């Protein structure tokens, strides 16, 4: 294999999110924040959420990581903002399914937004953890059950 295969993972959209992440800051008035570590590299990501009634009003993240984890965190904030908590939890679960190579309905894909292209991760199983870290933190922040 040559480095061409890398293009499937490091797509322009991914590089763009990694180099210019969306919602990368702390939220002083967050209702909840959760920090998770990637045990193999020591990277950490903290996800902040501000909920009002049942809805994620604001969401952001801080922390360092590889291209994949930064891009995925950025995509996650885009995807979950403004969702109700049950829908946000479902969206996180869909993302986990996607990274494991499952095919999603077009509706579910649409809900994931840019993150839907990370389906190529199934080809890079060693990197799935990098991508799911922020989503696990988000799911925990909204009180979703951790499997």
């Amino acid at each position, binding site marked *: *294999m040559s480095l061409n295969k*890398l293009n499937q993972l490091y797509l322009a959209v991914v590089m763009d999110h990694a180099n210019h992440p969306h919602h990368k800051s702390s939220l002083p008035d967050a209702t909840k924040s959760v920090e998770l570590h990637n045990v*193999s*590299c020591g990277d950490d990501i903290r996800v902040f959420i501000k909920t009002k009634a049942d809805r994620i009003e604001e969401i952001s993240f801080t922390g360092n990581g*590889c*291209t994949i984890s930064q891009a995925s965190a950025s995509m996650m904030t885009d995807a979950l903002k403004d969702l109700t908590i049950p829908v946000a939890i479902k969206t996180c679960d869909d993302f986990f399914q996607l990274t494991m190579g499952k095919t999603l309905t077009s509706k579910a894909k649409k809900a994931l937004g840019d993150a839907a292209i990370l389906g190529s991760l199934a080809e890079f199983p060693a*990197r799935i953890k990098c991508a799911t870290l922020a989503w696990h933190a988000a799911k925990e922040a909204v009180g979703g059950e951790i499997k």
Partner: protein
Amino acid sequence: MDKKFENVIKDFPILSQKINDEPLLYLDNAATSQTPNPVLNEMVSFYQSENANVHRGVYTLANEATTAYENVREQVAEFIHAPNAKSIVYTRSTTESLNLVASSFGDLVVHESDEILITIMEHHSNLIPWQQLAKRKHAKLKYVELADDQTLDIADFKRKLTERTKIVAVTQMSNVLGVTNPIKEITRLAHQQHAYVVVDAAQSVAHQSIDVQDLDVDFLAFSGHKMLGPTGIGVLFGKAELLDEMNPVQFGGEMIEAVSRTQAKWQSAPWKFEAGTQNIGGVIGLGAAITYISKLKMTWIEATEHKLLTYLLPQLVQIKGLTIYGPQTVAEHGSIVAFNLANLHPHDVATGLDMLGVEVRAGHHCAQPLMTTLGVESTVRASLSFYNSLADMDRFVYDVKMVKEFFNRES
């Protein structure tokens, strides 16, 4: 390519496979070494013709298994120049060996306000057991720092070693920086303060010969799987008189001399530390690994790896934006090179190399306090073995450059 190298390569069939359609280049030898056919064959042959539980049956087969098991203990003693086999305890790994010393011996000699002196380059397995011991005993854990050239700061060691120091725990070779520490000098100084010295030889054992009597260390730990042997078998060397003083930390079959309803009497060392059925197959594999290394000769292994490093390091140093951690010169470097490429995360670099068939480690290498000291979260690490070739080194340098270009093009 010399004849010996060609023959050696044939013993490692795993190396001749393809990864992501490219020939495998295995450069994660510091994590675990590959196991040559003669070692595997020896284990197969043991299971096919000698397998029985040891120290139990009176029947012939059990006796043969016991003899094989105890013979390897002699072999290990000889390998590290221990005075006799009684100072060799079988464990599961370096980690278990170090935990055994920290919890059993540590409990005996470390008391409130005593000091335990370790170094900032320790692997978590030679760090957390001491951190825990210090907490348990309300003792103080101190760290020897790095010098400017990222070798161990011996002046700092001398400053921090006091009459309060009860234990000095230090790695012989860093799994990140690649440096070998001056164990003999450290031991001499520590003994002047009546401190005991515990050495983590996980990384050194397969790359240099070890003489525990010359070094005069009190304890030394290593794992079979980093020296061409199987996983699940490790060794703790301890001076016989110290092992005698220590209490076992696991209890059960094998380790006792006699048991009544209310008490039990232990066997003598090393057997009192080997509770329950041991990893007998692993012991056999460990013995075969030592035989294999002895046939190759440690001097040949050292020379071969030194040649590889001498060839590789200057080429890596020249790659723009590449930072090498640890000493920059070959003289002070073992066969481990940790590095980062400017602006690139180690995981991205390692995935790129993986696509090219090159297997390297990316992460904190179980040395987070060291990473913090170096000012990074993680690094890429290539670790060499005598079964790598100069051509492998060329390919590695080329591939690192390719990966660098790939990511720089994208951003």
